């Protein structure tokens, strides 16, 4: 009788510990991946500064030069033009004001 109580209690204890550990692990992993993936890295006007305590080598792929001299233009010009009424300057002023006041 005593033995079966001990075994049942052990199973319950280990089972609960496993489930709690599993849930905490999943929650932590999910938040780390999700924040790494979608958090905005600053903005165009205020790019996020690199953390100074990490020293990293710049492994960005080197951009080799590409020559387009061999391409001889033969046909008509590229692109279709449209002109629209739009006071884009006032939109830029409003945004500039917002950025200045921050």
């Amino acid at each position, binding site marked *: 009788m005593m033995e079966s109580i001990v075994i049942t209690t052990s199973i319950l204890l280990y089972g609960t510990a496993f489930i709690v550990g599993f849930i905490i692990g999943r929650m932590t992993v999910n938040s780390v991946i999700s924040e790494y993936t979608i958090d905005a890295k600053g903005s165009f006007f205020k790019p996020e500064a690199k953390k100074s305590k990490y020293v990293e080598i710049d492994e960005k792929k080197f951009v080799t030069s590409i020559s387009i001299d061999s391409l001889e233009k033969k046909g008509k010009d590229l692109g279709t033009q449209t*002109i629209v009424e739009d006071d884009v300057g006032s939109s830029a002023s409003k945004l500039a004001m917002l950025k200045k006041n921050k």
Partner: protein
Amino acid sequence: MAKGLDVGTSFIVLAEEGSKGKVTYKDFRDAFYIIKPTTPIATKMIEKGLAGKTFVKDDDGSFIILGKDAIEKAVERNDSAKRPMYKGVVSSKEKDARRILTYILKEVSGAPSEPGEKIVFCVPAQPVDQEDEDFDVGYHEDVIVKLLTEVGYSARAINEAEALCYSELEKDDYTGITLSWGAGMVNVCVMLNGEPVVTFSTTKSGDWVDRMAAVATGEPDSIVQAEKENGDFTVGQPNDNQVLSAVASYYDRLIDYTTKQLAAAMEGHKSIPKFKDPLPVVVAGGTSKAKGFVDLFAKKLEDNGFPLPVKEVRHATDPLHAVSRGCLIAAQVM
């Protein structure tokens, strides 16, 4: 002076301010199709046949047709045109594609009006639904900065959906959500008072619809694309034309998938602020121009449990030019 440049998988759009109160847009279809003649007579015949089209001749004798003419020529030959970019970025492995993109961008952006003229171009955010070592936004950005600098511009990159916010959220005090539905990707930005809080992308958009509909109907992608752009269909509704019926069905699935991704990304995310008012959601991009798109998107957003309060879902004022307009505004402010 300053310029804005939307470097998209399907369209390249340049925006510049003309005379007071006017903006000039220059659009170019981001596509090419190569024809390699086998004999001198064929060379002459092909060149004659290309009169009035946009094309260049390469030093190996081949003709590279560019833009919508490339798509038309590909359709004529029951083939598919190629793209210099794939899913929002240029690949370092595709040398031909890089060369053609360089040519197109230099031609579309033209010479700067003064040395060091500011130009802002858009780049996609890191996708949440794909890990692909060939998807390298940093490399893509460097390629474009290098070529625009060679032409004489002072170039800087901006996140595509952030640019869309600057174009479309002015009357909302730059607070809301924007989605740019391009050909290769959907780019998302959540903005609060002019500061991006969350930016991400998904890798299924208009091209995915074309591809899936092409597989289902046995037609080349270019033909599906042409039918999609010229045909009359409503997103999610059956159609007598089998290609359009497939397109409408895959559009439905695409919107469902994207709204689910959006809900999953926002749900319980720590960076999302407590917005005091419901948010406007603005959609733009060529893929969003299909009939019934905005209504179905709004419905799916609700059905799929989008966790933030939504004031309205609206189309950008000019869905094809909105991103380049945002780039232009950023260039004028920087």
